[in-house]
């Protein structure tokens, strides 16, 4: 039995669907934490702002949320490419560019968080 495989397909599993939901929950929790911290910050001074991100717990939480954001964005953007970009070469190029961009953002975020 042969199945026609698509190079840039969704890899035929539940994995991405589940990953999208799990990253969504991580992001929702982080959004609430950050949103409340922001709204109830007495005054936006650099000291208070740096203080929020200087603890290891908040740094790790922020990085986890950012990784979740990039993974979540990857799934969503790839879905758009699969729906609208039909030629394999263009779709693959866009997918690779997207991955490179998102991984670059992650490195940027790590660099920012750990140089406070």
């Amino acid at each position: 039995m042969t199945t026609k495989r698509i190079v840039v397909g969704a890899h035929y599993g539940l994995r991405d669907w589940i990953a999208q939901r799990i990253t969504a929950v991580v992001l929702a929790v982080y959004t609430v934490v950050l949103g409340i911290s922001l709204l109830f910050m007495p005054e936006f001074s650099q000291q208070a702002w740096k203080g929020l991100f200087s603890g290891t717990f908040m740094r790790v939480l922020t990085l986890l949320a950012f990784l979740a954001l990039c993974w979540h964005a990857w799934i969503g953007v790839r879905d758009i490419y699969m729906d609208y970009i039909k030629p394999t070469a263009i779709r693959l190029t866009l997918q690779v560019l997207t991955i490179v961009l998102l991984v670059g953002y992650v490195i940027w975020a790590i660099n920012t968080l750990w140089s406070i």
Partner: protein
Amino acid sequence: MFLLGLPLALYLFQNSLGSQASFEGYKAFVASPFAKLVLLALIWAYLHHFCAGVRYLLLDLHVGTERDSARKSALASIAVSLALTAIFALKLFGAF
């Protein structure tokens, strides 16, 4: 969003947490009304996605899948995201 919104957010995040000079640069950038409007548009987009996303998670758990309640929750997610955006707008423009 991921081409413009994310780099902008990372850029502002980096400047706001950098040296005193970079923090002043961040404040000067964010002080302009145009920048505030751009940020507010991004906040609105994010909060709308957040509310619609929570709605989908609930639908996945078979909460509110009937036509009538699904329609109501769709309207509610729009209303809640607009209300939350209004709160952030007040904060952003210094009302509290």
